[in-house]
Structures are given as C-alpha cells and as structure tokens.
C-alpha cells in the first residue's frame, strides 16, 4: 500500500501534514511530530506585522522617560536587548530544516509588499522545502472594493513567487465572492498550491465587562465540510496542489479530504487537544480504510470524489443545501 503523495513537488511519505501551531516553536516537538508519523510540517508563521509591532513597542518602552530626567538617562537596560526582527525565527527554521528528516514548510504572514518579498528571500536561505503564504486580512474599510483587495493579494503572490525559487502554497480566505476565480488568479501568479482555508481569529464579547476579548478555539471535525466542498470544486479545475486545513481530526476526515482532491490534509487542533498519539491513529485508519476499500495508493484515492468525478456535480453546489432542506421533515 502506497501512502505517498506529492505536494508542491515534495515527495511525502503520507498525506498527513502538521500545520502551523504553537507546537512548532520547539525543536523537540518537531522531532516528536516526525516520530509520530506526519509527512511534513508547516511551521508557525513569521508575522511581519508582529515583528513590526514588537519593534515599535520596544521603541516606546525604551524611549519612555529616556533622557528626560537628570538622575536617569533611561529606565530599562537596553544592552541585552536582542534585535527585533526575524533572526530568531529564521534560525529556528534553519535548525528545523537541517535536523528534521521530513520536509519543513515555512509560513509567512505579511502586510507590506516589500516585507513579504524581503522575508520570502530570507526564508529560502534557511533551507526549508517550501513556503506557505498566509493571506490574512480583515478587509473592513468600506471604501475599498473587493477588486482592489484581491488585486493587492495577487500582487503579493506574484512578487513572492518571483522572489523565491521555493514552491509556494497560498492559504486563502473562504470569504471571497468568487473563490474559484481568485484561486485561479493565485495560481496564475505563480503559486503551486492552495491551502483551504484560513481560519480567522474571531473575537468574543465578555458580557460582564462589555469588552471585546480574544477567544481562540480549536477547530472540530464539523468545520471540515467547508474546505471539503471547495476542494471538490477546485480540484481538477485549478492546476494547483490542494491542502485541506481546519477540521482534519480523524482518519475519516483525512480520507474525505483525499477523495475530494486534496494532496494533503493538515492537522493541528487534534494534536493540540489529544497529543501526538492521534497521528498514528489517523494514519492507521487511513491504511485500514484503503485496505477495506481496495485502494492501493493515496494517489488512486485523490480526487475520486471531486466535483467532476461525482455523478452529480451540483451536489457540491447550492442544490446540496436545498436537498437538506427538503429532507427536513420538521
């Protein structure tokens, strides 16, 4: 039985990839992930905005009260300050790339055109196998039309892809008017893969204090259906490797992803919730199911149920919703 798959030109031993999570910050965890059986690891993101904000904050803190008072020219010792920037992140990527036996995929979250390109080039120098670009933005300005935002995204993809020889996958938002069209543009701009989808952080409201509060929740299997549908719709129509992320918790989730056309399924929340042991369990389920259903390779499974391979492609479209309604008996 061949579990191997090819994602972004990388030969992977199986389709289960660990996606960006706090676990990847520690090298020891990377070793444990590798040992547990994932075929590749997407590292936690390098957030350009975060680096910038960190620098600005450090600047504010070190400047507070500086050179204002005769008895103290400063209030925080700055001589042990580690320069703000991507250096420690890049060093971590380098160590991961050299010490871990499975492909390491870097992840980049940027905000400015120059920043993306600059960081993409620096990431390539670390020896990672690929780059995942995270188009993460909440376009809240009512004066900016979708076309402008999408054009901006495409510019970024094009600039990054032309500035690095690494294969680039783009993680996109599900909140697009025309996701299929946008996906095609992304691929035309040079991306080799699409990661479906970005899970936006959704703030919560504290009813006691009437304050907006951060509330990060892990995904669950139900969330799989959204990327599953779009994988089925895009697979075979857009010339890119598709990765499903958000909702891959079980072997069944992974199998469904493959059937819809994904080259890999990315799993994080389940590992965070249940530990590294869930990885072999998922892979074992994949093997078991393939054996039961006479699949000899993952490649054979891949796309077996994408929209143009199912009898009724509209099953993935609006009709699906109507059918559900119709079957509801009250």
């Amino acid at each position, binding site marked *: 039985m061949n579990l191997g798959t090819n994602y972004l030109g990388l030969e992977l031993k199986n389709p289960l990839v660990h996606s960006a999570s706090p676990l990847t910050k520690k090298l020891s965890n990377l070793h444990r992930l590798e040992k547990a059986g994932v075929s590749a690891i997407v590292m936690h993101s390098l957030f350009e905005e975060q680096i*910038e904000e960190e620098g*600005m904050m450090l600047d504010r803190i070190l400047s507070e009260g500086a050179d204002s008072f005769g008895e103290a020219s400063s209030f*925080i010792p700055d001589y*042990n300050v580690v320069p703000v920037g991507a250096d420690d992140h890049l060093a971590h990527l380098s160590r991961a790339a050299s010490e871990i036996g499975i492909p390491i995929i870097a992840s980049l979250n940027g905000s400015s055109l120059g920043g993306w390109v600059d960081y993409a080039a620096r990431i390539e120098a670390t020896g990672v196998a690929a780059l995942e670009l995270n188009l993460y933005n909440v376009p809240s300005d009512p004066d900016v039309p979708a076309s402008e935002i999408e054009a901006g995204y495409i510019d970024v993809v094009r600039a990054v892809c032309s500035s690095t020889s690494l294969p680039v996958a783009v993680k996109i938002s599900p909140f697009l008017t025309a996701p299929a069209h946008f996906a095609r543009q992304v691929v035309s701009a040079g991306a080799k893969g699409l990661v479906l989808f970005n899970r936006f952080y959704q703030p919560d409201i504290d009813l006691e204090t009437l304050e907006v509060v951060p509330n990060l929740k892990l995904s669950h299997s139900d969330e799989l259906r959204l990327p599953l549908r779009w994988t089925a719709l895009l697979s075979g129509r857009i010339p890119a490797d598709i990765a499903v992320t958000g909702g891959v918790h079980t072997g069944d989730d992974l199998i469904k992803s493959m059937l819809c056309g994904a080259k890999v399924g990315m799993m994080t929340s389940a590992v965070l919730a249940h530990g590294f042991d869930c990885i072999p369990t998922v892979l074992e389920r994949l093997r078991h199911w393939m054996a039961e259903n006479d699949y000899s390779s993952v490649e054979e499974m891949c796309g077996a149920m994408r929209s143009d391979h199912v009898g009724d492609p509209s099953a993935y479209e609006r009709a699906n919703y109507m059918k559900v309604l119709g079957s509801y008996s009250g």
Partner: protein
Amino acid sequence: MSRKLVAADGNEAAAHVAYRASEVIAIYPITPSTPMAESCDQYSAFGLKNIWGEVPQVTQMQSEGGVAGAVHGALQTGAMSTTFTASQGLLLMIPNMYKIAGELTPCVWHIAARSVATHALSIFGDHSDVMACRQTGWAQLFSSKVQECQDLAMISHAATLKARVPFLHAFDGFRTSHEIQKYEQLDDEDIAWMIDDDAVEAHRARAMTPDAPSVRGTAQNPDTFFQAREACNRYHDAVPDIVQGEMDRFAERVGRQYHLFDYEGAPDAERVIIVMGSGAETSTETAKFLQEKGEKVGVLTVRLFRPFSVGHFLDALPDTVKSIAVLDRTKEPGSVGEPLYQDVVTSLSERGGPQPLIIGGRYGLSSKEFTPAMVKAVFDELSKDEPKNHFTVGINDDITHTSLTYDREFRIESPDTTRAVFWGLGADGTVGANKNSIKIIALGTDLHAQGYFVYDSRKSGSQTVSHLRFGKSPIQSPYLVDQAEFVAVHQFSFLDKYDCLGIAADGATVLLNSNYSPDSIWEQLPGRVQEQLVTKGLRLFVIDAYKIARETRMGGRINTIMQTCFFQLAGVLPAEEAIRMIKEAIKKTYGKRGEAVVQMNYDAVDASLAALHEVRFPDVVTRKDTLLPLVPGDAPDFVKDVTARLLANEGELLPVSAFPPDGVFPCGTTRYEKRNIAQEVPVWEEDLCIQCGKCVVVCPHGVIRGKVYEPDQLEGAPETFKSADAKWREMPGKRFSLQVAVEDCTGCTLCVEACPAKDRSNVGRKAINMAEQLPIREKERDNWDFFTKLPDFSPADAEAAELKLKAPKDIQLLTPYIEFSGACTGCGETPYLKLMSQLCGDRTYIANATGCSSIYGGNLPTTPWCTDKNGRGPAWSNSLFEDNAEFGLGMRLTIEQKTTYARNLIREFAADLGDSLVSELLEASQETSTAIEEQRARIAQVRTKLAGSSHPRRSEMLTVVDFLARKSVWICGGDGWAYDIGYGGLDHVMASGANVNILVMDTEVYSNTGGQSSKATPLGAVAKFTADGKKTVKKNMGLLAMDYGHVYVAQVAMGSSDMQTVKAFQEAESYNGPSIILAYSHCIAHGIDITKGLTQQDLAVKSGHWLLYRYDPRRTSEGLNPLQLDCRPPKVPLKDYHDKENRYRMLMKSSPETAQAYLKQAQEVVNQRYAHFKQLAEL
C-alpha cells in the same frame, strides 16, 4: 600611534579604565556616578575582559557602606577592586576608607563629586563630598575635563599600586561626569602598559590566605597605636613623586603631560588663581584671554590634592606672584577658610619669606554656573588694595556681603566656535537627538564638540535645555552657552513662558516647531519674541514637526525631525553628508528595535527638509504683550517673589536674602504652577457616572476631585460647570460634582482605565473620557476655581454624615493633601500617598526616604504636599536614603515625649482652665476623626483661656499643647530604601514597637536612579545591574515583619482591590504599634504600557505574584488568626503577567531557556507562597 576618538561623557571615560584595571567591582546607584556602575555592568554583560583577560566580577550591594565593605574584603584577598560613588554614598564609605588607607591597600574609587545634603539635597556637583574624605589618608586626584577623567583614572590606577596608598579620583558631578566631549580613548594595551606587573604581583602576594595566614584588623592599646599609626608615613610621603612618575610615564606613552600642579598663564604673573576640577578649565581659558590683553595673570590647577605636596606646589607657582585667590567648590561653615585655601596658606607660610596676599573664595556649589565673567571678577579683586577674603562668586550675597560683583556681559568665547541651544521636552527626544548630533560631528569631522544637558526636576512634562558647542579648537568652556548662534525651540508654548531667545546672539538662526504656517506665525509670536527677532537681526525658520511625526508614525517624538533641520541650518556639515550621517546614527541607535523603527526615522528625516520654511517678517514689532505671568496674581508673596522666578528659569538671579536660611519652605506651591502639559485630559460625563470614585482614587496627580454639596451652593457656577444628584443614601438631596484640574493633569488616562461606567448604547464611551485640552482649558479653569470654593470634606465630616469610608466612593470626597506633583505620568506610587493623606493628612508627620517620592515630594521649584482650609496638613521632611525609618521613629519619640510633657503640664492649669476641661483633655479617646476634632476644639479653648493667664509656665504650656491632639507618623519610601539600604533601620523600628506607619511603595527597582535591581526585584526580571535576569527571589518583607508578631502588616495593590487598600491604610493608622504596608507600585521601569498600570496590578495579584493580605496583631486578643488572606488562589498563569512586562519579555527574547527556567521556578515560588500564606491564615 593613533588612538580611537570617541564622544562620551566623563563617567564613561573613567569607567573605561576602571573596568579594565579591576577584577572585582562592587556597585550601588547614586547620582551622578550611577552611569559608571551601569557601564561596568554593561561591559560585564557583554563579556568584556580586563587587562588580565578575565571578565571582572560586578556585584551590586545593598548600600555604599556595603560596597566599601565588599571592596575592602576583595582588596584584602588580593583583587584589584574599584567602585564609583558620590555625595552621601561616599560619606557612607568613610569608615572603610580609614581602614583601607590604614592598611596601605592600593585601589581607586571614582567619584562624580556632588553636594552633600545640608539644608537641602542636591544631586549636582561640588567638592563637599570628597572634601569630607580628605582626612582619611587617601590620595585625591582631580580631573577637570572629560579627557582627564580617563587619563587621571589611568594614572590613579597605576600610581596606587606603586604607592600602596588608595586613591579617590574625582571630577565634577554633572559638569564633567555628564558632559559629552570628544576625546582620545586609551586602548587595552595602553592600560596594560601603565599597570606595573610587579606592583600587581606584590599586591597579590600581600593577600590574606590560609596557605600563609596572618592577622589583620587587630585592636591596639595606648602602648602601640600611636607609633603604629606613624609607621605609614613614608608611604604617604612617597605618593607625590610616584604620581608624577606615572604622569611622566603616561606622557611618554600617550603624549599628554600632566603635573601635580599645572600652571598656565603669564610666566611673570602677578595675580594667580588656584583651583581644581572643571573650574580650572574656565579659569585657564579666561586667564589666557586676559593675558592676551596684557594682564599678568595665571592659573594653577591642582591635580593631586592629597597628599598636598608643598614642594611641587611652590615649584609650580610663579615667583612673580603678588596675590593669590584660592577657589574652593565647597563650604565649611565655621572654618578659617575652605580646604584648598588653608593648604595654600599653610604651604606659603611654611615656605617663609615674603608672602603674597592670599584670599579664598567659594564658587560653583551644586553646579552653580562658574563663568569667565566670574573668573575675571576674581582676578579684578586681586588687583584691589584690600581684596575681599572669604568671598563668594556667582551669587548675590546680600546678607553677609561675601559675594563679588561680576559683569554678566563679559564673554570670551572664540568666534570660531559654534554654539547651539535647544529648548525641548523630555518626552520629545531632544536630548537623545543632540547626543547623537555631537557624536556625528565629533566623529564624522575634525571638529571638536561639547554637549551639556540641563533637566528640570519633574518626571512628567519635564523641560530640557541642551547646550552644544562645536569648533576647530578644543573646547575649554565648562559652562552653559549664553550667546548662541543657533537656537531651537521645540515647543511653541515655551515662548509664552520663558525667554528662549534671550540666549540668541545677534544674527542667530532660530528654529521653531509650530503648527502655524510661515505666513501666519508672525502674529502668533509674543511681542517680546518679535522684538528679539527684529532687534537682534535673527533669522527664523519654522517647521510643523508634530505633523511630520504623526505622518511618519513617530508619535510625540520630534527628535529626528528637529535634528535634521538643525544640520540643514547650522551648516556644520554639507547637507547631504549630514543626512547620510544622521541615517547612519539612526541605524546604530534604533537598529535593535527593528526595521520598521529605523524606517520610521528615515521617513521623518526625508520629510523634514521639505517642511522647513524660513519666515519673512516685518522689521517692526506688531505685538506689545509680554511673557505670561507664571503664577496667579493672588498667590502668596513668597510664590510671587521666589517660586515664580524659579519657574521662569531665573533662580540664578535671586539673592541670598530670598531664601530661608534653614531650608524650610512653604507647602502646597504646585497649585500655583499651571503646567498645561497634557494634550488630552479627562472629561466627566455626569449622566453616566455612578459616582464610584475610582477615577479620583487612582489619579496619580490629584487632579480629579469629587465633592458633595447643597444644591444652593451651585449659585454662581460657571455655565459649563457640571453637577449631578449625589448618589449617597446618607446624603439625600445633595449635589455631586467631579471636577478635573485640566491645567495640572498629565494626561495619563489611568482614570479612564479605572472607570467602570459605560454608556449602554455605546460601550466605548465611559463616564470619564479623554478629550483635547486646549479647547476646554479656559472654561475648565473657571470650573476648577469654582469647584475649589465649594466646601471641603474631612474625615470628621464623613463621620458626621455616617459615611463608612470603606470604598473609593466615600474616599473621593476627602480632601487630598498631595496634589499636582512632578511624578511620572501614570505613577503607581502617588495614589497611595494621596490616600494616606486623605485619611489622616491633617495630623501626619511624614519621614520620606530619598528616592522618587522625595523628588516629586520635595524638589524645588514647587512643593505638592499641601494644607487644608484650617492650615493643617502633612509635615514632610526628607533626611537621607538610608536612615528614613529611624528618622520617622525620632519624630514619634518626640511626639510621645511632648505628649507626656503636655499631659503632665496641663494638670497644673486646672485653675485657669477648669477641672472639667483638663479632665476632658486628658481622657479624650481620639479614636475617631470627630473625637480628634473635639480635642482640637478643646485645645483652642486652652489657647483662648491662657491668653491672659499669668501662670509662670503659660508659654511652656502653649508650645506643647497641640501634642494633646493625636498625631500620626508615616515613614514612606521605595523598595531601594526599605529592602536594601534602609532595611537594618526599618527592621529596628519595627522591632521597637513604636507607633509608626511604614509605607513601602514597591516598584521592585530603584526607580529614581533609572531602574536598578533591588532585593524587591522579582526572580527573572531584567533590571539594571541584573541585565541577565534577577537570579534570586524577591525578599518576602511581609513575612519577615509578621514574624515579630506585634507588627501590623499589609500587602496591597490598588489596581486589584481598592477597598482592601483603604482598609489596610485605616487599620495601619489605627494600630497603636508599628505597621508596615507594602504597596505594589507599577512603574515605567517595568517596561509596561503605563496606561495599563492598574490592569497590570490586577494581573500581578491574579497570577499570585503579589498577594493581598493583612496581618493585624489585635485579632489575636480576640481569638482570631491575625492573618487574613485577601486574594483568591492564583488563577492566571504567571506567564500571562510576565508576558505583559518587558522586564520579563526581554529575557525571553535574549535568553529564552534561562527565562523559561526562571519562569518555571517563579511559578513554583508563587504556588508555594500562596499555599504557605493560606496555611498561615488557616491556623
């Protein structure tokens, strides 16, 4: 051999040598020497090695006394050891100095010489500290400029080893320690070459060792001590020649020749000034000028003051001298003359023969300016037939008439030198930019450069004035610029307050930051400024630097923008080169803060030149107004005559008679100084307000007040005065107003953070919100005036109204007795002091340890501790840093003594007063504020009844009668005092059982000197002197105090529980015995967003870092556990608290594994501590 040229200050120059020539360095912060200790700590953190290839041990001690002991021990065991100190710190070392010298132990201590506190503390420079050590047997070598700070440091370190006599290497605090100059830096090979290996080996061979033991520190008897004491003579006798020998060796290696006494001036001088320190530079510069005019004058600079070598001195003095003026930068009341004067007189007397006329004088105390005009006045005095002896120069002594008059217009500065003055705010980065500019010019060109910076004493809204000189010749002018070719005014509002352009030379260039356009600015300029522009022929340039700062994300910092304009206008460098060098400097300064910060500064540079415009103005003045009065017309005379002059930067002009002779100043003068430093201020929304008082209680500057009053008292209120129905069940039918003193507010926003009331339809709108100050200033000024006239509310009033005074809601109504201090914006300490003052300020004595609270509490020009309508209020005093607990105990002892005295004496007055009054006076319980008021009324009766009494002890009675009313003593200070330098005394005072209240405002660092580590600093926190994270846990002061059993102990954090805080203060004050309150005080040294200070306090408690508890010994007698734990178990991981503070985050970045280990250990400590306290509380 070419050496590196650097631009640095005297402290850095001295530390450069001291570090490399030492193995063990013990340090303790004290201004102005702290930067030397910080430099060594920094070198050590970088792993920089000494000349023996090792990284010296740099260890912080608990006090300067501790430092001296540690250095003594290090020396005795064979290490090369050094330290740095000043002022009171040096005085604390004196006992060990005798020992170290008596044991003939080589070492060098570097002293940024500073005034010793007398009638007042002063952080500024004079020689009173080193002069207090001249009898200890230490050699004393004085540097007079930055280059010498390095060179004579070197010579000291070399000479001490050969002489076996310890050296003090001194230079003028601030004037030299903080002046930036370009100088040639010694390299490590130079330093190694100067240190004699044989002498080092000999020192090591003398070390104590159990391998070849000896006994030191014996006690001796009359049969031996005297002879043994004289046995050291030949070592001291040899010092001058050894020092001169090292000076000669230094010259051989480096090229700069020094002598024990350096004479400069006319070879046939008839009039000579003898002086040491930076004053020698001014004197020499002036003498040269006068010599060129044909005057036979000269200056003898004393470098080696101890041992005073009469032979070398006489050799250096021109034979032609007829009259000598000896200048001392110290004052010794009661002596025949000051120390140097006495040495000179004795030396010449011992020489015998015809004697020149010798006069002595004092100058420059506490960094008082010493200018060429003053030097000329001294030379002129020497020409007189009967010159004044024991004179002063630089002040107007209109009481004892010691002062020499001098011509303020006399100037000698070279036309080749460019002088620039910058008026800025501390917060706008002006000083930092100017330090950079000096480095750019000094290191990027062949010009010499000098920079000196004057700060005011406030920690918020402080003003800075930067004095810069550049020129082709070395700059020998250690005094402020008073005629500048370039004047920059970084705040337009300064033009209304200060005579900024008075300093502009004719034809000077003026750069003004203003949002007025070049076309409209003229009419906005005060008449006096217009006149100066016209009459002096000045060129005016204007830039809206704040606009550019906003556009380039620089916030309030306009430093880079104004610096760019300076280089553009001053023409010191070609514009393009200047821009390139500014950008290089930006990269160097801000590189660690990330590309975005660097780019932001680059953007500011690039945007500046296009926005810089020259203003064309008419040749006639079009406005006739003058400077705004700095204090209101109805201020007391002292405020108008003295304080206002200080505020106008005219303190220099005040005569001796303007000042109290004993350092006693009036209270409550901050209220007359309307600083208007906040861009935004809180505005009350009366419809939303729940009148909880939280905003009032947390306000660090006492600018938000609440009052309840009768509705009819609103009559005559200004139109915009706000009022609401008072929400007190106990006070129905009354009105309530919350008023902000917008002109005194610093804009910290803590009040908004604390406000719990939100608009239900728009939760972003609270009952108090920030709004722009300028548009509401006038109206709110009127509102504040009206508000202050509404009746005040005392604790007795509260009792009468049956208020419980348990929560901020009630507390807000009480009059605070500290207001509008110069504490930092968002200060975490002052709310505690204010609360204490509200509860018992009218009967309180305050002993205040030196530190932040003594500076914002008592630094001129204005004083924040104030009085009420009865004239009562806290009696405040600062003694020292180390003795504050004892100082407060002394106050309590007096109160006890005088109270007993008064109680005994009053009994003798039964005939005059009546038995019942006497008995009431003696039996009054005074447990409540009402009862205290009643007792005060009885005392008033005593005064009335005794007015006509002929009782022989009447006057005696009246001097003590007020002690029949209850008094409270509060001993206040920070953790540097309580945990470190003053702990011994604090412990003793707690042990004494005396009825005192100790308030420790714990910022967990030495905040006043810039955030050095104390024993209150938590494990893993980065602070100065523990830049790699504090390795040990914070001292558990509360537990130590509780161990006595009879001490009331409370730990509070207002941001977590204001009610628990209030309760603790009330209980502490009411406890008839020692009480101690440990109060969590957030601070800018924590590296936090100060606007979130209260939230951070809460997080400190929720994470278990800071427990809330009260230990009340009174409960024991009621059969209760004295300890009450007032906080829940830690429910937030300590990491969440650490993550919000850069003092922890920095280590997480620089050394993540170490930081993780500290965090893990700290979390365990937190868990264990809570469990321990819980166990104790449940016993």
